[in-house]
């Protein structure tokens, strides 16, 4: 347990913040969700114009 905590602390010290604009699974996943939101907004705006 103590060993695990030591390792965890070391990992936290060396881990760097995730760099911006990284086209990884996290960004791909949230982009897909955001795309649905944007498309919904555009459809609503289009309906309001009619």
């Amino acid at each position, binding site marked *: 347990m103590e060993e695990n905590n030591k390792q965890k602390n070391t990992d936290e010290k060396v881990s760097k913040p995730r760099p*911006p604009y990284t086209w990884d699974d996290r960004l791909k996943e*949230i982009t897909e969700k955001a795309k649905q939101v944007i498309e919904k907004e555009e459809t609503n705006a289009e309906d309001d114009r009619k």
Partner: protein
Amino acid sequence: MIENKHLLLDTNSLVSLIKHARFYADFFNQLEKYQIKSVIDYSVKFEFLRGSNTKRDYEIKQEYLDILLGENRIELISTNEIFENAREIANIYTRKDSKLTKQISFADCLIAAQMKKFNEQKPERLFLATIDNNDFPLFIFDRIFIFTIDTEREIINMGIYRFNKEKYERLKKDFK
């Protein structure tokens, strides 16, 4: 030139990155390769988030910004100085071409003012990415690169711009 510098995306380029994400993979790779740092302006954040119909939609868009821009992003707020610079830049636009008064939005003028301010101490610290290439006129800005994507339905040109202090100062001097 742009390596390790800051890049500000305007609202329409953010929306384009979302709608046509898979076509922008190479664009993202370039930003990552050159270790570009992220910046967001509050007027862009406002324009991007304002259309949310539900709390859930708002949260998704907010989360998108958090993941895209990362923890170390700079958030630019509009101070009195920024508003005054935005007004001054808008006056220069009008003097050069009166059509620009209506064409270029308030948010675009604020972005131009942020570009001026951010680059004052150290030139070329902040660059702008936009797909609205007519909204950042070349009599004040320099377009240093164009990233083109072909979605098969349309061709989109993402221009990368820098604020040109010399051009601006010359035009400001002529504004009497």
